[in-house]
């Protein structure tokens, strides 16, 4: 019983760590290019995007954990990392595609179109690389993957929410759009450092 509680504790503590203290966007800038494009893109729903990203990250975590174990003893592992982890993401995407095709729900088509944008993303590959570089255990990896996806959703929500204010005429013309969005993300990142300190393990 205490073993199970310990595992649940580890899972949730790593999820919370990834949402706030090690937020993918604010502390590492993972997937920030996609976030900036997503916020101005009316065709792609931020919610569905973040949901697909979350699911992909959770499913990739165990696969990458075992792939990382196989990769560890190889002499050229540094070279092989992107190919191997990208293959893991491809397997998960294929699985998600099959599920979406079989489900035939009203949103299946939309989700199939969002899937490649959400999965082939530095947010997903970056999180997998962080998990493996820091040698997380299986439950830590899954917790971190889930938290990282939720952290991404939090960042998307915060930036989307601010868009109306960031379009204000009070902002000098040269700063409108991308520049002010970057400055806004920087200020939010500073607020997070205020809680956690600012060391980032690359």
């Amino acid at each position, binding site marked *: 019983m205490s073993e199970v509680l310990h595992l649940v504790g580890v899972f949730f503590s790593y999820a919370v760590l990834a949402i706030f203290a090690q937020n993918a966007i604010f502390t590492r800038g*993972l997937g*920030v290019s996609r976030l*900036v494009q997503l916020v101005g893109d009316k065709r792609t729903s931020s919610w569905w995007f973040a949901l697909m990203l979350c699911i992909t990250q959770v499913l990739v975590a165990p696969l990458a954990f075992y792939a990382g174990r196989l990769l560890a003893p190889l002499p050229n592992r540094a070279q092989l990392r992107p*190919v191997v982890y990208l293959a893991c993401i491809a397997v998960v995407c294929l699985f998600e595609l099959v599920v979406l095709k079989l489900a035939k729900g009203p949103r299946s088509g939309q989700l199939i179109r969002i*899937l490649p*944008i959400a999965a*082939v993303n530095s947010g997903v590959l970056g999180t997998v690389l962080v998990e493996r570089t820091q040698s997380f255990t299986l439950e830590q990896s899954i917790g971190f993957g889930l938290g990282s996806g939720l952290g991404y959703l939090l960042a998307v929500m915060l930036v989307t929410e601010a868009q109306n204010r960031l379009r204000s005429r009070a902002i000098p*013309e040269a700063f409108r759009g991308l520049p002010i969005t970057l400055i806004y993300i920087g200020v939010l990142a*500073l607020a997070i450092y205020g809680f956690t300190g600012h060391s980032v393990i690359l």
Partner: protein
Amino acid sequence: MRRHIAEAIARDPEKFAHHDRIFKNNPVVMQGMGLAPLVVLATSGKNAAMLAVAVALLLTPSRMLACLLSRLCPLRDERPEPEELEKKLLPRAFVYSGSAAVVYLAAYPILNMLFGTDLLTMGVYLPMLVVEPLLTYRFGRVQESMHKAVSKGLRITLGYALLLLILGCVREWLAFGTVFGVELSRSILPMASMPAGGFIVLGVVCAVWRALARKQREYLKNEARGYLAVHPQSQESGKEEKE
């Protein structure tokens, strides 16, 4: 200014600016691509130079390889039907990122030879380049020719490298008071070396860059109009020749 350039600017100034991936339509400043390595890694001139070499080794070759392979599932229209996107987007995404990962296999030993253990400072951001939108954004766009892949790849590499070096040097000077290790002043803004500082400095650099690009576009438009107003005859004779 040459006549054909003046005519191209006068005809469609936006289209003319669109082709300039180095200054007027820099992919980072205008479209926000490749931000993660810029914000986290480009904290010094040396880091920026390493990253620029990595991008130079990866971007154009991977784009060429992806251009070849993506012919198996090409997107033919600028605005494809949803059914076509559902079929082709996922394979194209993995063709583009997979091509970059394959090129990375060859690029990594070269980078290792050039920079040795310094390469470790790039952490997860070096392998992560294979999914950067800068390298993979074409998967959702219409199929391009090999000539375009090479020419655009080279121009985007130049534009990205230029911004990397500017940002790396500015952040190093602000955070440590040095540029490529040469001491210039005391540290002005230590925060510039952190990712949060990176976002803020990049935002300011983008704003200045955009303002300068807009000014240059206006200048070129006026110059082109002026040129065509002063030399109208050859334009008319050109039309006559065409007729």
